[in-house]
């Protein structure tokens, strides 16, 4: 048996030594460094990245997107390269990209690594806060040689944010619960970008500081939180009106909550909020409509805006 | 002739029980047939397990071929002692040939492939136990008696000087009982093997064994020539049963007589009357 152990140890040492000395042929030999300048073929692996690219007027250059990219409408027509969670490396390669834009998720990082090994140009972005979104827009602008458009976009967003600040800066903060998931009940906590949007919309998260970003809460917290408005994410593409009815029924249990008493329960299409992309301000407005219907009462089609 | 098994002052008790063996000492000369007999619970199987190294004794020593049993590694001990227990069907369906070739494990090299010599032992063993014709059948396809012969074949293929058997003919028919004991005796006479067989069948023990170890229920024991140990008083005392002792030429036999025996009360506590 001792011989066995020695044999094993030797094999392992050799393997490790080989690995350390890098005796392996690299796949790509001597590619020239990625050319700066406008990439002609861009692949995007996330919906918000797609929206940013379209906002920078790069629609011609976008050759493929992930399955769930559906805004703007033209994005839905682009070639698909797999799920947000499991991008299909082969499909990405078949699209012959000059630049692949990805998010900072484990699965996307793995794909990015494979592509990097093959010599492709990858841009990985972390977008989990509004600041990070703005930085990301900048970075994308630089990478795609559309700095001026990026600057313009940022200016627009900032000015819209300013307008909103003026409109909503001095209102009374409305307590709101943003429901991520109905069963089991999970809400967006204070440490999320959704919370940032809530605050910009003149609201205050009914839930206090929590350990988790998206805590599940129980009846006690619900009763104690005193939410004046409840906004619930619509699930999938099924009928919003149906979901609205179901939500009102669900919440009727907690009849003493101000939100339930005043019937301030809204089911909304959450993409503008949850995607954290260039439609940021629309997202804020969406929330603001729910929080301060009086301010928006003048605007016509208020109900349609909620959709 | 040397003593191949030497037991000195052996005592053993299972963890929370009374001592089952107290101060047992005996010597087995190489090339003898020893029968171990006694009532249930007397410690026959325990003694067997001690002799093959499965259990370790609290006090006393067991010497196999002049070295204490602790001095042997598991592999070395298997080259000295082969054990045959109750037959069973293994979980995985090995064939007869495969089971018998497992006997060569203590002698195999790194990758465990049998050499020509190993194959010779295996085939001889199959031949001797008349199991060669089953060699590609799985154990589940055989009868109990045939399986027991396979396990004996395995012990033979192990080519050890000592064979320990735990009731080797327990569920066999008469023909196979005789056959197996004949085979063991032949092994002893022709190959000089030392046979130690635990048996319930005192008549077979008396017929075949040279020596006998009779274990009593109260941790007592008797060791000596089979003829002497298998006397009627001994049997009646140790087994607690009334019986008739008879003799044909030099073959002694004992028939237990129960309450409903049809001997007409002729046989009382003092046998010898019917001899």
């Amino acid at each position: 048996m001792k011989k066995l152990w020695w044999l094993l140890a030797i094999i392992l040492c050799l393997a490790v030594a080989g690995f350390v000395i890098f005796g392996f042929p690299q796949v790509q030999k001597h590619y020239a460094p990625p050319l700066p300048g406008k990439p002609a073929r861009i692949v995007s692996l996330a919906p918000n990245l797609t929206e940013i690219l379209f906002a920078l007027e790069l629609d011609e250059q976008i050759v493929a997107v992930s399955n769930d990219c559906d805004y703007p409408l033209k994005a839905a027509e682009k070639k698909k390269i797999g799920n947000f969670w499991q991008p299909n490396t082969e499909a990405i390669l078949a699209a012959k990209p000059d630049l692949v834009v990805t998010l900072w998720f484990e699965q996307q990082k793995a794909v990015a690594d494979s592509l990097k090994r093959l010599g492709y140009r990858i841009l990985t972005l972390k977008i989990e806060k509004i600041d990070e979104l703005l930085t990301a827009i900048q970075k994308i602008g630089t990478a795609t040689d559309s700095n001026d458009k990026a600057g313009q976009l940022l200016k627009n967003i900032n000015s819209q944010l300013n307008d909103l600040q003026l409109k909503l800066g001095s209102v009374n903060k409305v307590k709101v619960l943003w429901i991520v998931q109905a069963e089991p009940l999970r809400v967006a906590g204070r440490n999320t970008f959704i919370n940032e949007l809530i605050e910009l919309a003149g609201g205050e998260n009914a839930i206090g500081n929590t350990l988790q970003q998206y805590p599940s809460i129980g009846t006690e917290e619900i009763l104690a939180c005193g939410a004046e408005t409840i906004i619930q994410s619509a699930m999938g593409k099924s009928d919003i009106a149906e979901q609205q009815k179901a939500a009102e029924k669900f919440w009727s249990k907690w009849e003493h909550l101000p939100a339930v008493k005043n019937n301030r329960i809204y089911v909304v299409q959450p993409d503008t909020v949850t995607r954290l992309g260039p439609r940021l301000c629309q997202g804020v407005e969406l929330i603001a409509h729910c929080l301060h219907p009086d301010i928006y009462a003048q605007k016509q089609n208020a109900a349609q805006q909620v959709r | 002739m040397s003593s191949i098994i030497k037991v000195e002052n052996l005592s053993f008790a299972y963890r929370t029980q009374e001592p089952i063996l107290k101060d047992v000492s005996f010597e087995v000369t190489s090339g003898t047939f020893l029968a171990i007999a006694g009532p249930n619970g007397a410690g026959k199987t325990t003694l067997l397990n001690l002799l093959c190294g499965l259990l370790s004794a609290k006090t006393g020593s067991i010497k196999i071929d002049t070295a204490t049993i602790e001095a042997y590694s598991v592999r070395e001990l298997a080259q000295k002692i082969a054990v045959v227990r109750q037959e069973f069907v293994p979980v995985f369906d090995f064939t007869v040939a495969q089971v018998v070739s497992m006997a060569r494990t203590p002698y195999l090299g790194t990758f465990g492939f049998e050499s020509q010599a190993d194959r010779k032992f295996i085939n001889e063993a199959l031949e001797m136990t008349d199991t060669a014709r089953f060699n590609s059948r799985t154990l589940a396809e055989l009868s109990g008696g045939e399986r027991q012969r396979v396990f004996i074949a395995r012990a033979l293929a192990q080519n050890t000087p000592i064979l320990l058997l735990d009731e080797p003919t327990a569920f066999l028919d008469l023909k196979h009982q005789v056959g197996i004991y004949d085979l063991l005796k032949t092994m002893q006479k022709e190959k000089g093997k030392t046979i130690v067989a635990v048996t319930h069948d005192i008549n077979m023990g008396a017929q075949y064994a040279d020596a006998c170890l009779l274990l009593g229920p109260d941790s007592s024991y008797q060791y000596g020539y089979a003829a002497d140990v298998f006397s009627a008083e001994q049997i009646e005392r140790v087994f607690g049963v009334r019986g008739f002792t008879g003799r044909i030429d030099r073959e002694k036999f004992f028939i237990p007589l129960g309450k409903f025996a049809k001997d007409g009360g002729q046989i009382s506590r003092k046998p010898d009357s019917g001899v």
Partner: protein
Amino acid sequence: MHRNKTPRNRLDKSMAEMLTSEKLAIRIVICLAVLVVVMALCTLTGKIHLPEGSRKISLEKVFAGPGQKPGENIDYEIFVGVRLPRVILAALVGAALACSGVILQAILRNPLADPYILGISSGAGLGVITAVISGITWSFWAGSPMAVFAFAGALGTVWLVWFIGRFTGKSQVTSLLLAGVVINAFFSAVIMFLTSIAKSDQLRLTIFWLMGNITEKSLSVLAVSAACILAGIFALFCISHRLNVLTLGQEEAKGLGVDTTRTRAAAFGFAAFITAVAVSLSGLVGFVGLIIPHGVRLIFGPDHRQLLPLSGIIGGIFLVIADTLARTVFGQEQLPVGVITAIAGGPFFLFLLAKYSRKVSWLK
């Protein structure tokens, strides 16, 4: 006893039945050849969906080598960058899991054991969810912290199971099983707790990882894994003749000269090692470790000297085919390979059982 009546040719026939190293070597070579052919065929399966149209991958282009810049020779890039690493990884993981299944079934004397039974799955799962939740980004192995944690979790749990098993009860096998059950239950509870506090994307990630996936890894990672797995399988091969004996039971094995504790420890240790390596790379791919040993045993018999290497190779073949199906059956969509192994494994095994039921005694 009819000693003289047994004809010579009968004996020769019995001698021919026994496994020799030559016979085994031939069988291994044949199976390896099949593996290589299957791997080659699978790398060529599946169309490439280029913008100008879908077509089959072209071997000529592959042999032409990488182009001047990325995107020039798509065939080469897809072949060498995606398909080849996947096929190699699938073969390695399949081999590791199948061999590990053989060993676990031998140690536990139970044909229904699989490589995950003694805590490896819950240990790896716990490692993964811990890595995901703690948000550690430092990585070393395969470029992913999850892989390291999965490996450490799996091995740590196995060690724990072995340690506990040694101190409970007399029967090693039963105490191992009980320790495994206890550890699995406890770790599952911890995993449940961590799941409840995980963010949705972290959760998604963990579940995805646990389902079992074959993804492309770098050549250096593949090489190190191959060395580890092959070394482990080789070590297991060296003790497989003792495993034959071990399956007869503790007492019988000792009587035949096998040190049961050392053999069991070595077998378990190496099996756990190769499983942990496989699991760290591909997640918990199910079914392979359970049915491949069964199937190979049905066809070739239970002799572990043969069962182990052949199961390894056939396990590799199976997983390569399964992964190719996972990659191509729905066009652009990719299924986790664990789904394919489950769906394909069941009926396949039933077919084997029906065909070879003559050999299986308890069906008579």
